[in-house]
């Protein structure tokens, strides 16, 4: 029995006159680790921004457990849906602890002082992301991998049902990439957290996600399990490049090899 958390129907939207996301229909089940892939300009980030209410749809809607998200108050929405962006540069040197406590803002009234419970939630979020030892550091003293873990902790402090992530690993080296993705996997498995993640790296997406959506020109080209989406036919059709798709000998997940033009 499927348990739909987010239902996207006929979603169309973009900026000014330009429509970037066109009539997307998509169901996200509870406990999904959903990867959104596609070439530049295919609408991955725009789709995520529509899902997080940063921009409003031109047509269609998104339902969170049956209720239209544009009709929920922004505060309530943010208690249930949290967002982690690609890279956050901050001009002000807040401490890590202050940043993570900001994750409690959706749960607090204006001028309400954080209670013991808020502190405990923030602390738990930091230990979950293995960043508790950083709590007294200033955010601008951290490495990019550490900073990303802190921002995931802030999102977790919101105690959301869904975590939306926009290329959270694209500025990280492979060591930090794996660290962040392993953390997400752990959240997905242990906390049954639903994750929707936009990714550039097809192999990482294939290795971690249980479901994938391949976008092309703002529409869904293919969705399904990684081995259904990451086929050489799909990738060549969408990315216009020649690839070989093989199986990872250990995890038996698909992986994609690029072929330079001269060697074809």
């Amino acid at each position: 029995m499927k348990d739909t958390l987010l239902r996207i129907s006929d979603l169309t939207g973009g900026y000014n006159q330009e429509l970037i996301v066109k009539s997307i229909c998509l169901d996200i089940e509870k406990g999904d680790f959903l990867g959104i892939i596609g070439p530049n300009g295919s609408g991955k980030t725009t789709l995520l921004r529509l899902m997080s209410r940063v921009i409003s749809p031109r047509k269609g809607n998104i339902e969170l457990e049956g209720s239209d998200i544009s009709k929920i108050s922004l505060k309530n929405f943010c208690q249930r849906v949290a967002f982690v962006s690609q890279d956050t540069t901050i001009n002000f040197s807040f401490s890590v602890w202050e940043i993570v406590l900001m994750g409690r803002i959706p749960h607090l009234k204006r001028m309400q002082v954080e209670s013991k419970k808020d502190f405990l939630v923030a602390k738990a979020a930091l230990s979950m992301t293995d960043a508790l030892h950083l709590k007294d550091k200033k955010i601008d003293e951290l490495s990019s991998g550490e900073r990303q873990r802190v921002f995931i902790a802030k999102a977790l402090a919101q105690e959301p049902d869904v975590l939306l992530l926009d290329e959270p690993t694209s500025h990280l080296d492979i060591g930090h990439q794996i660290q962040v993705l392993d953390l997400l996997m752990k959240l997905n498995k242990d906390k049954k957290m639903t994750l929707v993640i936009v990714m550039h790296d097809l192999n990482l997406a294939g290795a971690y996600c249980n479901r994938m959506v391949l976008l092309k020109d703002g529409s869904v080209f293919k969705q399904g399990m990684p081995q259904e989406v990451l086929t050489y036919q799909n990738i060549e059709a969408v990315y216009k490049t020649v690839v070989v798709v093989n199986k990872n000998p250990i995890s038996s997940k698909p992986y994609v090899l690029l072929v330079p033009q001269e060697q074809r």
Partner: protein
Amino acid sequence: MRFIKNYTVMKNNFKKSFIILAIILLLAVTLAVIKGAVNIPFAKIFLKENQAIFQLRLLRILAALVLGSGLAVSGIVLQAILKNSLAEPYLLGTSSGAGLGAVIAIILGVSRIYFPLAAFLGAILSVILVYSLARQNNKINQQSLILSGVIVSVAFSAIIVFLVSMSGNEALHGITWWLWGSLQVYDIKLLFIVSSVVLIGIILIYIFSQDLNAISIGEEEAMHLGVEIEKIKTILIIVTSLITASLVCICGIIGFVGLMIPHMMRLVVGPNHKILIPFTCLAAGIFMVICDVIARSVMPPLEIPIGVITAVLGAPTFIFLLKRSQRVK
């Protein structure tokens, strides 16, 4: 629970620094009561013969406190919502816009009670002008923001000079008063009106301090935390314009206070607005009271315009911050 205890220890440290600042403020106020064109020993300040001077100086001190905290808190808000460390009412042209509005109201002979309103209209006009000058593709260009502000400021100041020199109206107090400011209190009723506006404004801003924290880590980040940024930005810009406009009506145009004090206090207590705003109010109060003492006592009986002192201290701060923001980029 060591963890939460640490946090309370930190809060107690803030309490201590806050008390120290309050004591310094008290000392500065005492100094300001004693020093001036004539120095009155503290023991004699309450005597009947000195009552007039005492009252006059108290009013000046009130004006200094209101002016300092109002401008500095406005600076904090503008720096947070524009994400520009150089933003403050003077450099964004808001003060000059307000000045122009007030000058026009005085020349038209409007009742004094409405000066802040006229100044507010001028301030809003300059805000709209500066933002549309700095806007490119629906986004505010950080580099041209301060440039637009300074240009609008210079242009409006020129119009003020023109209007003041053409008009013989005594209520205008002359060109220097408008361009460099003074804490000489001409109208007690107006001072009380302005003080209430500034006090209410600061309280209102403080209510939004958690939102300001969220906005200063990024607009989209703030939206993801449930902060309705467009609404809150509009409210805060109107409140800061109102504070600036009211202050211009009693003190003229005074620059750089909103730049220096918030930055100093961020170095001391960090960027958390819940703590930063009260600390900045105190520090800015101390700063203005001392500036006024200097203005009055360097060359008595002449008074140096107070804006000269803030500019002499503020310009190096500006250069320092500019260099630092360029290095970050």
